[in-house]
């Protein structure tokens, strides 16, 4: 066992972690009672699914605030999967129905914003349906992969306009620097 303690923080840098950047990342919202336990079950049963599926545990799918989904996309998720108990099996009786209603409306908004329906899906799993849930994870990845990365955080391709931005006669030195920072901020979506 290793005991060394490092107490000096290192500077953050923006390089990506070890996962292949091109492999889609899917954020999954789970409810505490059914789908999260199904995920635990998938674990206990050692059922394999793609590693870039990442879970966020809430008490109920009814807690899912559309902002969470938007936040996920804004922060770089390529897909978002809403999971919860089967309609009649909600631990809170009927709250997953509210989640369903929000899903239906949010889906319309996302489509209007140009986000493919495959990127935003929902799935029901009872606490016993670990294998089914794991399968749903794999399916979701398969659905999203062909669409390529969503990269919402990425800077829109400025190439043609960008050179106009750096028009020497209009910009002095430090405002050029600002212009750079400015571009950064443009990338800083959703913060």
């Amino acid at each position: 066992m290793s005991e060394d303690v490092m107490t000096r923080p290192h500077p953050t840098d923006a390089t990506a972690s070890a996962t292949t950047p091109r492999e889609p990342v899917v954020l999954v919202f789970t409810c505490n009672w059914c789908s999260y336990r199904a995920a635990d079950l998938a674990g206990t049963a050692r059922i394999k699914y793609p590693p870039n599926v990442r879970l966020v545990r809430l008490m109920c799918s009814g807690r899912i605030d559309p902002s969470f989904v938007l936040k996920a996309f804004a922060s770089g998720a390529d897909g978002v999967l809403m999971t919860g108990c089967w309609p009649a099996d909600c631990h809170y009786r009927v709250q997953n129905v509210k989640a369903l209603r929000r899903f239906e409306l949010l889906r319309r908004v996302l489509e209007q914003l140009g986000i493919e329906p495959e990127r935003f899906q929902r799935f029901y799993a009872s606490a016993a349906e670990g294998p089914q849930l794991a399968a749903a994870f794999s399916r979701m990845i398969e659905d999203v992969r062909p669409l390529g990365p969503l990269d919402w955080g990425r800077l829109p391709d400025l190439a043609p306009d960008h050179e106009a931005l750096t028009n020497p006669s209009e910009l002095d030195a430090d405002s050029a620097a600002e212009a750079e920072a400015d571009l950064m901020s443009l990338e800083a979506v959703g913060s």
Partner: protein
Amino acid sequence: MTPNEPADSPRVGVYVCHCGTNIAGTVDVAAVRDWAMERLGPHGVVVSRDYPFMCSSLGQELIEDDIRELGLNRVVVAACSPHMHEKTFRGACERAGLNPYLCELVSIREQVSWVHTDKVAATAKAEALLAGGVLRVREQVPLEPMRVPINEATLVVGGGIAGITAALEIADAGFPVHLVEREPSIGGHMAQFDKTFPTLDCAACILTPKMVTAGSHPNITLHTWSEVTDVAGYVGNFTVKVLHRPRYLDTDLCTGCGICQEKCPAKVVDPVFEAGIGYRKAIYRPFPQAVPKFPVLDPDNCIYFERGTCRACEKLCPTGAIRLDQQPEEVTLQVGNIVLATGFEAFDARRVEAYGYGRLANVFTSLEFERMSNASGPTGGQIVLRDGVTEPKTVAIVHCVGSRDRNYNKYCSAICCMQSMKFAHLVREHTDATVYEFYIDIRAPGKAFDEFYQRVQDEGTIFIRGRVAEVTDVLRMPDEAAEDGRLIVQVEDTLAGLQRRIPVDMVVLSVGLEPQADAHEVARRFGITCSSEGWVIERHPKLDPVATMTEGVFAAGCALGPRDIPASVASGAAAAARILGRIQQRELALEPIRAVIDAERCSGCRICNDLCPFSAITFDAVQAVTEVNPALCQGCGVCIAACPAGAIAGTGFSDAQILGQIEGILMFSGAADVGARTASPEPKAPEAVPA
């Protein structure tokens, strides 16, 4: 939103568990440890360690020491599922004087090492989840658990042996119990049996006393011929509605003399207690030892209800107890805990066409045989063919009917092997018939089970290893069976490796156990989860086998899955013990996960008013603001997500925590190299010139 410095600037300690090789085998824990230090330093991580078993006392001390010595005010443990060890590590924090809710558990076992194989990807995911945990815990605030009083009364659903045991245990400890049974009498399936394996003691002899005690116990209220129609509230304070179906008689007047039953002209097949091979009257007491002693009238078969005439029972009842106009009545009970002991249903043998049950007269099910072999059963304990007189000369007992079969139920019903061998013994006991047992595997792992197997072999029962392919009355040769009309059991004797056609008089199908037909409905009503088949799911299959996912609701007996009498009794007693423990505490600490409304910001739009199934949300018309009753709030968070003014906050799962977690999970992930920059706390826009 995230992560503008929380009130106290966070000092986070990160602890990565190897869980032996469970995690370390797939995740490079050392790398995760160092990564957390480097990348999450700016987010408040001041110490990062790994340890083979964080949950061990040494591992916990590690955390406690750091809290004291490094002044940690947040702790993140990357280990197993929070459902496994959240309590453990919260305990550690508490011991070190840190509010337990400032501890976050990140599951890198169930969600990473156990479900992935690629080490690099798994490690990266572990890091991402860890980042999520850190950014989430930063936004967490100290919380105090909610304390609620516990109602001392307990509801036990199901009056079989498991339910009766649970009821008696609790009642004997001096607390009130409501025992609800769907049938007219308690006793369940065990009351139908003659003998019990492997000891062969008489079921009635050991069950009846318990039934009587339960029936007369001052602390037990029986609700037979009744069903639970609604469950509201939460652990410690459930409100339960029970529907009493009309017995069509006044139990205060009825002496249980049985004259009505005697005189009733309507004789019908009894599909329940007599398993379809015996008869009862339209007004009947299912069996002599029934508890309570009162009969019930079954309107579907009552001549009066069909034609409006007869009323024999009414005329002849010495105490005038018959009430043909009786209506169902609903009672409301207040209980603190619930035991579900709803039992099982026998597999419907008709579904296996090849065995001809229902088509071939002399094919019987195990339940039919139980009744037949029972001294108080329709044949007075005689083993006879369907004709009611002929004694069989050869009997075939077929194992695994509807069990261990992907066409019906995948699982092993656990009791059939022993039950079948009990039958073999009973046949030998009552007749001198030759008995065949057709089995796939003999499963006799219980105490004195295998000895019983030996015994039955000694008694001359012939065991043939082979799953019966079909039972038929079509003879291939006129002389195939000694007499016509006898049945042929066609099977491969797998040990001899040849197909055999064995003529027998009687076939007994040892049918499997299935969950009650309405298991899913019941689970829904009680807010618990059950498997796709319908068996109740335990909170933990090994460590918490009688608790359910829902606080205050326990399960016992075959509701949890097929099991024999001793196991049912044990689980009933276990559930009772768990409940008694809670009752003793008088009050109960609940997770402080609640919704809180900021009256300042509530505009009284009333969007949320209709969203709470626990009626925790009320509207104050005077102030024109909405309020949440923390005692009723279950913390689902629906109203929080619904409030258009953002005026409802959620403790334990606040927007800030969740948004932080999302950001953390994605900030370093491959898909969001930009996300990383997004997430770093330093502001991106150029600093404005100070005014």
